[in-house]
Every structure is written in structure tokens, then in C-alpha cells.
């Protein structure tokens, strides 16, 4: 069958990916720069075709708690927002992680702090990979760098969420959300039946049959001895995830003496920087983390033995750089170059920094 | 037609709140002097006049009263 190619915005690709991968429910609230997701979904109106529920909630707080409710049923549910809205969702994310439920959340990051700006940013890295909400939990975090990945990572995100019974964050930004690129879309996959969910996910709330006790979805354990056990279980799960789910890409690192580390749209810009560097005779390569948590520590440690210097490029004041430093264990100097508050660095300005290393 | 009733009290589950006593039209139940393992002075039957109306059970927040009623 011929491939189906569409020209889409990143935000639209998220919505299309959700419909086609068999998502059961989307609950969201408008916020720039990601409102196209909800607009696209309401215009497509998938309910009569696939049964996918699309609902505009009264707030991001309600959205994430609708996701919590839907996830408790073993349904593939998601929400999307941008930075201030994601801040509002942190409580719910912590509950979802604590109750060990699968869910997909997309953050099309904009500049902050506060109301900030509607322009792109990567300043929500800390919030996403270091907690955000309360308690010892992790979000599996995917960082798409193209509209194609926006599309692909929706299904991947759901797969990981159900594999680990854990919320997955798709950490995008205003560039990837708004840019238009061609996307190869997949076929429509049917949503899971209620019978399939009941059989495959015995924890899901499907209505208590005579044959078993009632299912409870909760993140509460008043007894600290039990709560510590719950935490140990979570940590063991995260360890398995760290061992199995690290994803990254490298560009021209084979002979690199200088390594750029960047994710998302910064990584796209850095690909151009690598080209500029190579043209100027600088042996520069790029490592792009695709999962921000779990973070590609091992490949970075390996490359640190080969390169003499590392430059992280982020649209923030320097957040991922902390994980890069931890990963390379002080074996090589790590510097940061960033633009923030909604500004996007150009390849040329990064190249100028590169020349000073 | 007259009814004769009685109740079975889960004395260990009883918290001794006494709300049931307020609903008994026959005044045949009361909180006793004996405490259960949790230290509550639990409900006791004090008279043989129960008609099995179930008011006590209906009021019991903890569902510790079972009611039986027979025609006499």
C-alpha cells in the first residue's frame, strides 16, 4: 500500500497520531502555542468514526484529572498543554504516577517563568525530568525534533505508558508544534475493546465481577511501611525503564573532538552547526537525547573519553547541562549556550561559540 | 398481626455511638457498661420487647446490627 503523506503542523500531527493510533480520549484546555491540537481534534470529530472522546475541560487541572479517571479504566487517554498549563497539572501527574497509571501528556513548551511568552522554549526540562509534582516519581520523557516524531511519539508514548504503567511526557516546544513538515501517517488502528482491556490489564476499573475482589486505584498508603514498599516498587520499575528505554541519536560523532548535546528543536539547529563546523575543519558531532528521562548517560560517558569538550545547547538558562555533567563524571569540560525567554538561537551564533572551545 | 423481633449485635464492631438507641420505639436497647476490645461501651439488649422494626440497624453507621422478625 502506498505511503500516505500529509503536510502538517507539529500540533496537528499530535492530534492525527492520537486518532490513528486508537486513542480513547483526549481532555484539554486551550493555551498557545498548542491550541491547534484541540481545534484539530474537535474539527475531525473522531467520536462517530473511532469512538475517541474529545472534551474541552474547564481547566488544565480538570484535564489532567479527567486523564486520571480515564487512565484508571485502562483507557488510552491523553492531554496536551503548554508550560503554565503543565504547571497546573503537576498535582495530577504525581497522583497518576503514584497510582501507577498509564497516560500521555504533551507539553508544547513556551517561555517562562510565569505567564512568560508564547514563543518557544525548553525551560521546562527541570520540571519534567526532575519531578515537577511532589514525591519520588519519574516521567518517561520523549523529546521529538520533527513533525514526524510528533506523530510517531504519540503511539510510542502510549506503548511505553502501558508497558510501565507510568505517565509519559512528550516534551516538545513551540517550534516543533508550529512548524509544518511532511508526515508519513500510519493506518487507523482500532481502539481496544473493553473485553481486551479487562483481560490484558487486570488492574483496570471495568466494573467488579463476582470472580474477583474490587479494583482500587489509589496513590494513598497511610502506613509509612507500606508507602516505603510502594516507593521501592516504583524505583525498581524506573531502574528497568532506565536499562531498557534510553533512546538517542548521534550525528558525525565518530571522529568528533567537540560534542554538541541538544534535544528537540535545538538539536535541529545544532545539525546545521555541525555542518558549519565541519566546513570550517572543526571535528564536531552531535548527540541528541530522544528520551530525556531515562537520560542517555552511557553513550555520553563513552563519548566523553573521546572528545575534549562538550557544549550543550538549550533554549533555557542551562538545565539539561546538569544531567550531561553528571553523565560524563567530570571527565571533560561541559559548557552551555542558551537563548531563552522565547528566543531561538541561530546556527551562526552557536557556531561562533563553538569556535572559542 | 403482631411481630416479635430480635437483633444480633456485632459487639466488637460497635463503636458505642448510641444513635441507634434514639431510634428504638420499644426502648429495648441501650449502651451497656461492658467495653469491647476497642474500649467502646457497646450496644446491649435490655428488654424482650423488640418488634423487629429495624430502626436501630437503619441508623447504625457501622452496620453492626442484624435484625430478625417473626410473626407471632
Amino acid at each position, binding site marked *: 500500500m502506498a505511503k500516505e503523506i500529509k503536510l502538517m503542523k507539529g500540533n496537528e500531527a499530535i492530534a492525527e497520531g492520537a486518532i490513528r493510533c486508537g486513542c480513547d*480520549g483526549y*481532555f484539554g484546555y486551550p493555551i498557545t502555542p498548542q491550541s491547534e491540537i484541540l481545534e484539530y481534534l474537535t474539527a475531525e470529530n473522531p467520536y462517530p468514526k473511532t469512538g475517541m472522546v474529545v*472534551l474541552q*475541560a*474547564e481547566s488544565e*487541572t*480538570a*484535564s489532567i*484529572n*479527567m486523564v*486520571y*479517571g*480515564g487512565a*484508571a*479504566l485502562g*483507557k488510552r*487517554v491523553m492531554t496536551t498543554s503548554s508550560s503554565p498549563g503543565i504547571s497546573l497539572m503537576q*498535582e*495530577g501527574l504525581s*497522583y497518576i504516577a503514584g*497510582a501507577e497509571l498509564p497516560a500521555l501528556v504533551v507539553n508544547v513548551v513556551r517561555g517562562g517563568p510565569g505567564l512568560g511568552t508564547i514563543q518557544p522554549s525548553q525551560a521546562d526540562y527541570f520540571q519534567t525530568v526532575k519531578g515537577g509534582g511532589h514525591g519520588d516519581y519519574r516521567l518517561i520523557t520523549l523529546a521529538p525534533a520533527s513533525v514526524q516524531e510528533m506523530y510517531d511519539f504519540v503511539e510510542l508514548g502510549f506503548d511505553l505508558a502501558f508497558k510501565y504503567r507510568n505517565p509519559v511526557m512528550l516534551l516538545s516546544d513551540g517550534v516543533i508544534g508550529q512548524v509544518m513538515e511532511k508526515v508519513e501517517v500510519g493506518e487507523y488502528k482500532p481502539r481496544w475493546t*473493553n473485553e481486551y482491556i479487562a483481560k490484558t490489564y487486570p488492574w483496570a*476499573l*471495568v*466494573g*467488579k*465481577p463476582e470472580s474477583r*475482589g*474490587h*479494583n*482500587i*486505584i*489509589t*496513590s*494513598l498508603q497511610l502506613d509509612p511501611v507500606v508507602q516505603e514498599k510502594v516507593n521501592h516498587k516504583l524505583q525498581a520499575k524506573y531502574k528497568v525503564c532506565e536499562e531498557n528505554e534510553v533512546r538517542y541519536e548521534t550525528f558525525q560523532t565518530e571522529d568528533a573532538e567537540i560534542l554538541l548535546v541538544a534535544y528537540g528543536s535545538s538539536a535541529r539547529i545544532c545539525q546545521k552547526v555541525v555542518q558549519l563546523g565541519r566546513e570550517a575543519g572543526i571535528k564536531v558531532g552531535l548527540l541528541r537525547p530522544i528520551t530525556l528521562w531515562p537520560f542517555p548517560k552511557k553513550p555520553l560517558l563513552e563519548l566523553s573519553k573521546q572528545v575534549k569538550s562538550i557544549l550543550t545547547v538549550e533554549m533555557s538558562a542551562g538545565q539539561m547541562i546538569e544531567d550531561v555533567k553528571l553523565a560524563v563524571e567530570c571527565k571533560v569540560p561541559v559548557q552551555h549556550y542558551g537563548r531563552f525567554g522565547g528566543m531561538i538561537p541561530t546556527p551562526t551564533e552557536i557556531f561562533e561559540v563553538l569556535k572559542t572551545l | 398481626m403482631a411481630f*416479635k423481633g*430480635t437483633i*444480633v449485635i456485632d459487639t466488637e464492631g460497635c*463503636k*458505642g*455511638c*448510641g*444513635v441507634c*438507641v434514639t*431510634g428504638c420505639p420499644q426502648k429495648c436497647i441501650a449502651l451497656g457498661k461492658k467495653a469491647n476490645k476497642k474500649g*467502646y461501651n457497646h450496644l446491649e439488649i435490655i428488654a424482650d420487647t423488640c418488634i*423487629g422494626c*429495624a*430502626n436501630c440497624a*437503619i*441508623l*447504625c*453507621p*457501622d*452496620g453492626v446490627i*442484624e*435484625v*430478625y*422478625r*417473626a410473626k407471632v
Partner: protein
Amino acid sequence: MTREEIIKPENLVYSKTKVLTDTVMHYCPGCGHGTTHRLVAEVIDEMGIQSETLGVAPVGCAVLAYNYFDVDIAEAAHGRAPALATAMKRLRPEKFVFTYQGDGDLAAIGTGETIHACNRGENITIIFVNNGIYGMTGGQMAPTTLEGMVTATSPYGREQQFNGHPLKITELVAQLPGTYYVTRQAVYTPALVRRAKKAIRQAFEYQKLNKGVTFVEIVSNCNSGWKMSPVKANEWLEENMLPFYPLGDLKVPEKE
């Protein structure tokens, strides 16, 4: 006729419903939560919908309700039960979905979720237990605390000028077109318990019609928070709570 002769299976007229688990409830002696739990469970039992019911527990005194209701049930974040229930009902419209919430949960931190679930006309049942206080955290002032009422955070009595007015959230949601049945009940006398149970049954029956939220407020006591004996608390409830929160139906479906 001896006691032994009466205690026979065929003479059993009342026993605990199987839709409540055997877990001993943590509620204080005489708390209306226990009675309200029982009524909801009895209704689910009598309607034969245990396997078709999905519950949502709140944060507050009833946070552990999931241990007592023998149905598949989720424990929500504080105030967010209607949001969870919204998604649950939309994704499984054939199920009976109910939330069980207190006044702090439903009428303070969760006001937004309450109002909007009611206004959207979600086909869910909301059981709202109003005892005018935050019981779980030790008796602090709630949105429903009466004027002049002493609590841990209104130690000299709730002052209207300073703390605002007690919130009649049930009257408020009754105004919304998305609610189908709104009623206020109590559970401190046998007659009231019977009436409250009928109301809860009605609320669940109406849920089948898919005509919007059915909302049952239970004006209840908090003898620990009010610092009274259980029986005294019920008398206080009648004398003080009911004049401000009068019992009865606030909204009933128009006859078709």
C-alpha cells in the same frame, strides 16, 4: 417465642449489604458517613448493579471510601472527583458512575470541577456529605461552616465580614441546566434514613436516563469536629444546620 426461634434465615429483615466490604470503617462513632456509605451500597445492591458501578472517592474524611465500597473505585485528588467521573462516564457510558465527596472537597477546592461537571450535564451521581467542617484534618472551617460556628480556624466563631458566608453549593448547582435531580437529605432518624435512601435510589435510577447530574446532599454531623457526643451532635444538626440547609428536593424532573 424464644430469641433462638426468631434468629432464623427466613426471619432476617436487615443485615449489612454485600456491597460494603468487611473492613471496619475508620469513621468516628456516630458519623453520618457510615450511614451514607451503607445507603449508597444498599442501593447498588438492590439495583443489582455492583458489577456495573464505578466509584470515585474524595480527599477528606471519606478518602478511604474505596476500602468500604465493594465496587471498582478510584481515589481522586482533592476536589477533582467530578473530573475523574466525567472521563469515566464518557469512556464507559453504560456504567453507573458516582462520586462521594465532602464539603471541603466539593465546595471549596473542587468548586470548579463541581460546577462544570454539573453544568455540562455529566450523567453521573454526586453524593455530597455536608457536615460544615473539615473533619479529617481536625475540624477546621469549611465553606459550609455556619455563621458563628466555632472551628479550629474560626476559634471565635465564623465571622461573616471576615470569612464570608456559608456556601449553599447545592442551591447553586440546582440552578444549572445540567443538573437533573438535586435533593438535600439527612440520616439521623429512621424516617430520614429511609427518605435519604429513596433519594439515592432515585439518583441512580435517573442516571440511566442520561439527562444530567443527579446530586444528593446529605446534611451530616461531625461530632468529633463539633466536639459533642454523637447524639448531641445530631440534635445540634437539627437545630442549627437544618434551618440554613433545609431538607427536601431542590430540583425534580418536570413531568413529561
